[in-house]
């Protein structure tokens, strides 16, 4: 078997789909050709990097639906435009959602009718999840949501106070979480039964705590306290126990190290938050 022929079978060998006889020949070739063996090892590393591609989250721009609608309407021309205008109207950014405000200083509502930079984050699942962003104030976090379906946003703060908001389909919705405490606090936010998240919002001051044992909620609070960034727990059993030693200056690296072996993924989002989710 030539080296060129061997390379043609690298993928099948890696995926374990090579027929037994051919596999034996290829493995013998690799064992006798150090250079080719090194090539295959490098190929394996490339495949491992590629295998991570599907786990990379992609943020959906807020203007996507509008872009699609406009493209179709442009092609239809003015005489057909009215047929789609209702659709475009529903897709476009419109009036503020209907609100039910609770009398609490801990949740500040901001309704955006202007375009915002990002609309949502999709992972592997097709479920629409809210996104969380840090703000210019350390003790605040912004939750954004965008869905074609109506939803009721429920926010529960550390005191147990509940706030409820009605979202409008295809209209950006946002709510600001304000933590007035010195240390980090937990907020629970839910839009639909399948999209609840827990957010540890930093307090007014950074805390020194670095080591500990506790639930994922406690862990999220410890990270928020030490590094001053919001931490989101999504689709995890927040009562799971972890040990942590947050001794560095890199929140993402320290958090990842703490949960290694736990089948959890830690992601530093482009919105300066840390997202912990099930692998």
């Amino acid at each position, binding site marked *: 078997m030539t080296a060129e022929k061997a*390379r*043609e*079978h*690298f*993928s*099948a060998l890696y995926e374990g789909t090579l027929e037994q006889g051919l596999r034996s020949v290829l493995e013998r070739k690799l064992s006798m050709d150090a250079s080719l063996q090194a*090539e295959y090892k*490098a*190929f394996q*590393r*490339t*495949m491992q*990097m*590629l*295998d991570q*591609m*599907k786990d*990379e989250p*992609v943020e*959906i*721009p807020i*203007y*996507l*639906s509008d*872009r*699609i609608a*406009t*493209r*179709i309407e442009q*092609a239809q021309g003015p005489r057909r435009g009215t*047929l*789609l205008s209702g*659709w475009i109207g529903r897709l476009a950014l419109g009036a503020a959602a209907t609100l039910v405000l609770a009398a609490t200083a801990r949740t500040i509502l901001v309704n955006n009718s202007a375009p915002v930079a990002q609309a*949502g984050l*999709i992972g592997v699942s*097709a479920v629409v999840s809210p996104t969380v962003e840090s703000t210019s104030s350390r003790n605040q976090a912004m939750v954004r949501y965008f869905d*074609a379906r109506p939803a009721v946003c429920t926010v529960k703060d550390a005191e147990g106070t509940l706030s409820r908001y009605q979202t409008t389909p295809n209209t950006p919705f946002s709510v600001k979480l304000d933590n007035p405490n010195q240390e980090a606090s937990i907020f629970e936010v839910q839009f639909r039964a399948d999209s609840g998240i827990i957010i540890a919002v930093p307090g007014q001051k950074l805390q020194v705590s670095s080591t500990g044992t506790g639930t994922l909620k406690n862990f999220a609070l410890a990270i928020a306290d030490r590094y001053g960034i919001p931490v989101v727990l999504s689709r995890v059993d927040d009562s799971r126990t972890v040990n942590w030693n947050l001794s560095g200056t890199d929140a993402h690296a320290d958090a990842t190290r703490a949960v290694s072996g736990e089948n959890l993924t830690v992601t530093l989002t482009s919105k300066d938050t840390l997202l912990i989710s099930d692998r």
Partner: protein
Amino acid sequence: MSESSQEDQLLIQRAQGGDRSSFNALVRKYEQKAYQYAYRLTRNQEEAADIVAEAFFRIFNALHNFRGNSTFNTWLYRILTNCYLDHRKKERLRTHSSLDSSFATSEGEMTIEVEDTRPLPDEQATREVRNERFEEAVLSLPEFQRALIVMYHGENMSYEEMAAALDLPVGTIKSRLNRARLVLRERLVKDEELFQP
């Protein structure tokens, strides 16, 4: 047939009958997935959004011809891939010379390499640098090879699904994808130290 495919079939039938809300529902169901694919191909928000918009425009115009020989999902990926390749072709015609000029060969597209004058990575290269170089290497692949890579590794499509979407035999898909992976491997050779375990 999966529940999702059954739902698609119903929506398509209604849309073919003139029901715009059914077409809207199809768009809403697939626009994010379509964008994810287009973004992974282009790594550019604007370009990805344009490609998705163009794809749904083509679907809107061709829906009356859709006979259900493949799933809507498969058809969508085919159209998205064609929109992406057409978009890249237009971009190349617009710019006479660019950093990744390419030319066609019988194997597909080949890219002319330009010398990389960036400083060598630090010995303590971070994971971000490694990811960045990896992403650049994927972006430097010829478009069709890039599409194969993203379909399989990004969109988690099977060889059979890719074959249906691209209208090629499964064996051809496997060999071309293997070739794309080998080319990617060659592109990463100059950054080998970043990828050592």
